[in-house]
């Protein structure tokens, strides 16, 4: 039988054709080889993975560290960009008032009923009651309460705030009173030729020296018959809704 099969195979080989036996066997074994190769490749891949695992873990850790470092750097850069306007304001305020005490706003009135903010400088930093508070743009308010490590500042827009004020171009005196949203300039002489856009600055007073910008006249209220004075609405120069860094002006001696 073996000799017969061998002869048949030899004859097909000499004729240059593939014997049916060869076709059958190779076809069947092809599937087996495919399955075996799949298993072997899988096992080999598994072994390679196991071999590379310590390296992968280290690489993963390195990438995570890089990612965290980049994220932190990105956050810092974003924060720096966000702080640019406040830093510019603060630099301008420090330039105008070199003796001023830099402070950060750390709290607001919980119910927004009064216009009061808390700053992170108190008595130990040399802050006193009635000290003026400014940003680089203008007046913020004055200190009304001093604790050892913090102070409360009454904003110029609060309805209980009153400051001596001067319309800059005509030197007309007035009182700047808070209206909860803006500042009202009261008791301006009826003869004063005030105009919309006029700059209003502080007059010499307990909290401020003369000449610190409060804001600009936004609207002049009609004078009623027989009135002895006029009233104007002033838009504060400092953005009191987005206070971040301020400068406390120590009281004049």
């Amino acid at each position, binding site marked *: 039988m073996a000799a017969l099969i061998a002869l048949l195979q030899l004859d097909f080989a000499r004729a240059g054709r593939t014997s049916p036996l060869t076709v059958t066997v190779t076809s069947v074994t092809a599937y087996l080889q495919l399955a075996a190769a799949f298993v072997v490749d899988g096992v080999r891949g598994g072994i390679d993975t196991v071999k590379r695992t310590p390296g992968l873990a280290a690489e993963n850790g390195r990438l995570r560290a890089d990612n965290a470092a980049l994220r932190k750097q990105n956050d810092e850069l974003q924060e720096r960009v966000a702080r640019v306007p406040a830093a510019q304001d603060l630099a301008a305020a420090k330039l105008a008032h070199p003796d001023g005490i830099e402070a950060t706003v750390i*709290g607001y009135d919980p119910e927004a009923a009064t216009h009061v903010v808390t700053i992170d400088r108190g008595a130990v930093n040399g802050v006193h009651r009635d000290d003026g508070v400014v940003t680089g743009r203008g007046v913020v308010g004055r200190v009304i309460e001093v604790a050892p490590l913090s102070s409360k500042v009454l904003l110029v827009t609060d309805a209980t705030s009153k400051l001596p004020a001067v319309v800059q171009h005509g030197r007309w005196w007035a009182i700047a009173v808070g209206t909860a949203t803006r500042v009202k300039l009261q008791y301006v002489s009826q003869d004063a030729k005030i105009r919309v856009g006029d700059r209003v600055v502080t007059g010499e007073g307990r909290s401020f020296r003369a000449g610190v910008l409060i804001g600009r006249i936004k609207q002049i209220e009609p004078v009623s018959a027989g009135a002895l004075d006029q009233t104007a609405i002033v838009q504060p120069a400092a953005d009191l809704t987005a206070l971040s860094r301020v400068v406390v002006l120590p009281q004049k001696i």
Partner: protein
Amino acid sequence: MEITVGPAYWPVLGWTSLLAFAQTVVVPLLAFRGAVPSLVTIAVVLYASRAGARHGAMLALPAGLLEDIFGGTGGGWTIATTVVALLVGGFSRRMFADGAFVPAVLCGLAVLVRDAIFWSVMRIEGFPPGFALVHAHTSLWRALLTALVAFAWLVVRGRLVTDKTTIERYGYT
């Protein structure tokens, strides 16, 4: 005889203190038309409506005191919050303080009453008259925002907390 069962006092006091702190640091940054929702009022009203007037006042007093300290006001919030807690605690005997809508409306009304009492106290302390009227518009916004926040919180809590106590006061006559 009345047996009052409500949320435990000390955890609620802790959470309310945190809310008072958030109220001075974070919430004002989210002001809408100059008004902010009063988280402290929500906490006090919801607690007083469940635990009763006396327990509510025990929570309202330190909560209001914290707001006075943070805001630099001279006791206005302490008195106003305590009075509101007493009112809500007394009023809640006549209502079923469950669901979301009624307590949320109660929170909004409490803000209006609280603001009116606050400005009355400030008037007595020497503030010029008319501040309550000056702030009436802001108070209305605050009441609306507070009611909305309370409603959202109660709806979310109702969905998340399955083991909530719905009946907490048992009356025996």
